[in-house]
């Protein structure tokens, strides 16, 4: 017996929009999609005419919305799959996918705990799904987001994150080039950033940290040093050195 989420389904691209010069959001219609939790992933399988096929895993960018799902794909220079998905894949085209995958790095809307989201670069995608899930259910759990990017042009979902939202504090940190008027110099995330933008450890927030391996290592170590219970710190690392 194949469980529902393991079945390969055929989805179609309903809409595509650029998030940054190198990242594109894909909205897919997936008949039979079983639903998912914010933070989960989907496997996408591409097959060439000669039968060659390859699969990649992408974080879901938004909560369940019927049979419609969203992912945001960062174009990896010289990549095999991301240039296809961001440049060739066209509205109406089919693609195979299965999921949702992953049940650990997830936020459940019933939880009233404060939430600290810390994202580096493309690591914003699964935590954005959590922010959107909170909005979708009218949740009142207090959220803070600390989002590290290289330059202002690298901010995903920029308009949406600029819009004031009750109970959500957004702090953006720039590592290479900051916008005019941003206080301080561009820098990599450090103790002071996490301490200032996060919750005190005694509030016992759920912490979700997602980004490149080095970023996640740094942030997770800082959180533990600041007194957060390691069991409350869930992490997701990008990159081959992470597992």
């Amino acid at each position: 017996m194949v469980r529902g989420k393991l079945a390969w389904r055929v989805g179609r691209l309903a809409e595509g929009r650029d998030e940054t010069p190198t990242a594109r959001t894909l909205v897919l219609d997936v008949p039979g999609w079983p639903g998912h939790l914010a933070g989960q992933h989907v496997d996408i399988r591409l097959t060439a005419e000669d039968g060659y096929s390859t699969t990649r895993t992408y974080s879901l960018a938004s909560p369940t919305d019927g049979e419609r799902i969203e992912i945001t794909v960062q174009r990896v220079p010289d990549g095999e799959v991301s240039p296809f998905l961001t440049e060739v894949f066209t509205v109406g085209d089919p693609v195979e996918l299965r999921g949702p995958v992953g049940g650990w790095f997830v936020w459940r809307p019933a939880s009233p705990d404060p939430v600290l989201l810390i994202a580096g670069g493309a690591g914003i995608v699964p935590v954005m799904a959590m922010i959107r899930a909170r909005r979708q259910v009218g949740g009142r759990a207090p959220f803070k987001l600390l989002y590290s990017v290289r330059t202002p042009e690298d901010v995903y979902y920029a308009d949406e994150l600029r819009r004031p939202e009750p109970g959500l504090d957004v702090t953006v940190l720039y590592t290479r080039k900051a916008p005019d008027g941003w206080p301080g110099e561009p820098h990599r995330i450090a103790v002071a950033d996490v301490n200032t933008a996060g919750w005190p450890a005694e509030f016992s927030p759920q912490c979700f940290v997602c980004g490149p391996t080095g970023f996640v290592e740094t942030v997770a170590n800082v959180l533990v040093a600041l007194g957060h219970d390691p069991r409350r710190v869930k992490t997701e690392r990008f990159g081959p050195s992470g597992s």
Partner: protein
Amino acid sequence: MGIVTPGFRGRARSADERLPPGQYLVEDFPVLSAGPTPRIRTENWTFTVTTESGLRHEWSWSDLLALPSETPTVDIHCVTRWSKLDTTWRGVSLDTLLEDVDTAADYAMVQAHGGYTTNLPLEDLLDGQAWIAFEFDGEDLTSEHGGPARLLVPHLYFWKSAKWVKGLRLMLDDEPGFWEAAGYHDYGDPWREQRYQGD
């Protein structure tokens, strides 16, 4: 074979017979990891094997280093689809550690600092297939890679090679570990693409 994706050709590919299906050598992709990296000091490190009857066998760090070690060069395969060929480690074979352990168990639950667990058939840890590894590429294993010591079981997906390993609990019956309880496959053979339950 699935439906053809219009316009997708894939990268020029060589048939590398050492690459299991669905794996590729280097690419950015999400990796699931449970939490912060535990920092374990070797003076506090022990490795414990507990049999199904509750008998404990324990090794300190210096006990481990006093045992004969091996330097396997192996290919490793992560369920998130990356593979790395010809990685070189140094460690103590589980054959050596389990030599004097009297058990009728068929399964082992691997236990790690930080609370992580993973289950395997005991026979997959024997006959030169598994090590407690404490060096990678000639250097001490870093905390990020599971140091001071991790399990190395290269013939299974790498989530079975628990980082920060601290012991084995031998079991007569199989039980799921951390990822296995979250929907990953109980066995995890990369050559059969046993990624999730039901694969």
